[in-house]
């Protein structure tokens, strides 16, 4: 693959004078764990927003923070925020940087606050099925620890190896098994935060009287508070797991199957329906590979020949998305993957009931193989995107949600809007009784890097506008960040004033992660 160009830290703007002036006080606040070094600032300048990769390909760098701090206690977080208020500095809470919407970009500089030192994992309270964890705990670390004690959180985002509990809370994360276990907001019993005022707080557990503020803080993407810990619901490790794949004559029939499965009260942990073209790709995933290339040639092919060919092919094809998208009309079949887990008898019984529904809709029974194949490679997708971008294209994903009456129209309108700019795939997952999530993948190209970036922004504006116009929302689980800030504000209508009012209560000086959510 093409190597991305080296970016020189020397190209960074120097830290702002007011931050350098505040550096001694910052050091005192966090026990000396502060840096204004260029390498640290460069490392924290971006998250996994694909736009940053396009920029890096052009030798551009997102605006870096002026300083990075690593607090280790709620008091230290509080001290940093209070200092930021006094000195009028921005504070950007940072987990593991796996966000894909620019939620941790320091667009106006300031102090990035890495919270990974909040890495405690408490003992599971078996009687109450709960565990207290620090906000900086990585998802995979938490899940492995819970598994070793016989428990699971049930939260498996594809970023599980590189995302934190705090990041999940900040962006309202969803895992691949959300249809059974819920999104992160369904798992949280209480949160520990430091508000933009610098005050330390713990939200109460039910029962209590009055409004529940946890839903206001969860999803606030660092604009209201920094999460330092949470008490989360856990479940026993599943003793049984059942996979089942079906293929339908159309995407509409597949959607109807999911809707009826949830209407019947069944709760598969996984429901993934691939649109026809995605189905064509998925269908090949399980196929046996042909005899391999001699090992001696593999290295050459991988490093030189294939990337060069790929670059040419992708530029030629993805530069003409209309042609590529028209090809999709030749496909119609739609593949559904179901997975039930938990009590083995229950999982089998629910699978039988779901199978009956799928057969009523003339779904072809593919057995367990497609589900098992997906399960084995369920975290791979995040890594494929980087390779696509390295090959000289742009790639991104958009996840939205809609009620069942609107799902197909949202699918068609977003597909049509985005098809002008990129090659479009979609699958439907994270289902509920009243609707589901639509997960679009875009792959595009352009004549030049500048043209590609222009096309990238055009695509997002068109796709989000189409989604909202057709009755969808702007995000199901990636959050908003910078990427969807304007779309969020537009979709809120007059409600945006309520959001601003909440901001003024919890972050009166506007120091917390400015520019995100449109705040």
């Amino acid at each position, binding site marked *: 693959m093409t190597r991305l160009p080296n970016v020189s830290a020397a190209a960074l703007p120097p830290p702002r004078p007011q931050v350098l002036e505040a550096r001694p006080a910052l050091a005192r606040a966090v026990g000396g764990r502060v840096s204004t070094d260029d390498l640290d600032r460069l490392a924290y300048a971006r998250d996994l927003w694909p736009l940053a990769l396009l920029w890096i390909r052009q030798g551009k760098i997102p605006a870096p923070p002026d300083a990075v701090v690593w607090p280790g206690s709620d008091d230290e977080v509080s001290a940093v925020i209070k200092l930021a208020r006094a000195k009028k500095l921005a504070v950007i809470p940072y987990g593991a940087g796996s966000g894909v919407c620019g939620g941790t970009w320091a667009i106006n500089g300031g102090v990035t606050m890495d919270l990974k030192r909040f890495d405690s994992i408490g003992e599971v309270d078996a009687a109450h*099925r709960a565990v207290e964890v620090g906000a900086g705990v990585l998802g995979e670390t938490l899940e492995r620890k819970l598994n070793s004690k016989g428990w699971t959180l049930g939260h498996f985002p594809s970023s599980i190896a590189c995302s934190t509990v705090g990041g999940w809370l900040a*962006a*309202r994360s*969803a895992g691949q098994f959300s249809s*059974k276990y*819920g999104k992160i907001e*369904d798992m949280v019993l209480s949160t520990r935060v430091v508000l933009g005022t610098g005050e330390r*707080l713990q*939200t109460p557990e*039910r029962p209590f*009287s*009055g*409004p*529940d*503020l946890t*839903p*206001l*803080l*969860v*999803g606030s*993407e660092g604009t209201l508070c920094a999460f330092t810990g949470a008490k989360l*619901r856990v479940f*026993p490790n599943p003793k049984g797991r059942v996979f089942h794949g079906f293929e339908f004559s159309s995407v509409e029939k597949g959607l109807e199957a999911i809707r009826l499965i949830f*209407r019947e*009260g069944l*709760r598969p942990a996984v429901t993934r329906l691939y649109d026809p073209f995605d189905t064509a790709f998925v269908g090949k995933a399980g196929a046996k590979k042909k005899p391999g290339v001699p090992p001696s040639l593999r290295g050459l092919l991988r490093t030189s020949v294939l990337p060069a060919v790929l670059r040419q092919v992708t530029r030629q094809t993805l530069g003409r998305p209309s042609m590529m998208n028209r090809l999709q009309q030749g496909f119609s079949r739609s593949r559904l993957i179901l997975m039930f887990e*938990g009590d083995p008898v*229950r999982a089998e019984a*629910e699978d039988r*009931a779901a199978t009956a529904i799928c057969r009523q809709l003339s779904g072809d029974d593919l057995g367990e193989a497609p589900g098992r194949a997906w399960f084995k490679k369920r975290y791979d997708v995040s890594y494929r995107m980087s390779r696509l971008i390295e090959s000289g294209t742009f790639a991104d994903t958009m*996840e*939205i*949600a*809609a*009620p*069942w*009456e*609107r799902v197909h129209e949202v699918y068609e309108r977003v597909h049509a809007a985005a098809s002008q700019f990129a090659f479009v795939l979609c699958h439907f997952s994270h289902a509920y009784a*009243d*609707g*589901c*999530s639509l997960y679009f993948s875009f792959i595009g190209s352009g004549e030049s890097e500048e043209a590609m970036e222009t096309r990238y922004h055009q695509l997002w504006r068109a796709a989000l506008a189409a989604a909202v116009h057709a009755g*969808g*929302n702007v*995000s*199901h*689980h990636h*959050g*908003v960040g910078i990427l969807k800030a304007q779309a*969020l504000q537009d979709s809120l*209508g*007059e*409600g945006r*004033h*309520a*959001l601003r*009012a*909440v901001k003024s*209560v*919890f972050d009166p000086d506007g120091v917390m992660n400015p520019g995100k959510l449109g705040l």
Partner: protein
Amino acid sequence: MSPSKQPPLGSWARRTEQGLVAEPATERELTEVIHVLADRGVKLHRDLALSRARLTEIAAIGTESMTVRVGAGVVLQDLDHHLEPHGLTIGPLSPAAMSLRLGEFLEGPYAGLRSIPGGRLEPVCTALSAVTSDGRRLETSRAPRSAAGPDLSALVLGAGGRLALVTGAVLRCMPFPERDVRVAFSFPSAQAFVTALQRCVAEGFWPWRVHADSRSGRVIAEVRWAASVGSVERDRELLSRCVEEAGGRGAGEAEREGPVSVEHESTWDAVRASLEQGRAVQLFRLSLTTVVARGDVEGVPLNETTGWTSLGSRLLALDARGVFGGAP
């Protein structure tokens, strides 16, 4: 209230024995009420009561998503009768909750919550519309779940109308059940009863009501649930197995008449403690977190608004014009 602060009696306000009541018929009238009160320095909940009994619209039902848009003045029991011919029901809420108007259910101590399969609590509304103290409209998305910023419905749910006034909501319904089942079990202890129920709920069992009574050192419980024929049988199998694994067994008839008392939101620990003291309880809205309980059970009373947490009280600053009357 001083004479100068007497609000005008427009079409939306009337005098009652309890004092002045504003009774707007539309969201627009409600907005007008808020502006007039702000101009005159009159406070809702203190100087003037607000009724949304005239906001009774029940709009078209979304049969695919099983949702219905409902005005804040609709009584939930009436709504349930309206839904039945369409093959839907609002689902298993407690008796006292079903007697409330939608606005009271959402804004009051019930906070609009219900349990769903898997033992989670979620708001019965997937979207809501409300008016804030500056007279602006707040409308949340109808998407089933969202990561589009904070969930602003938190300004309405359980907030007693002190941060925003709900005018209507889109409610999640469920299929009207084909079968309604009651089965009685006997448990060796209160802990065994709690263990069995929690395990069932976590695996997807969705009971509508549980009546439990302590007799001669054992807990006798009648579990009632309703769903499709297939679902009822799957649940019966799961429930029977969970009861057996907890040391319980089938029993004959349980006491049908449960205690009728104020409903509380209670923890499972409180339920267990109550049973261990030989008391009878009736449980609704069973989740892994809390239940709605009738009987002598410790918990937050759901028939009255009690004090807010300090964090919640902080949000009263959102009512910059002081229209909503401050802390409950």
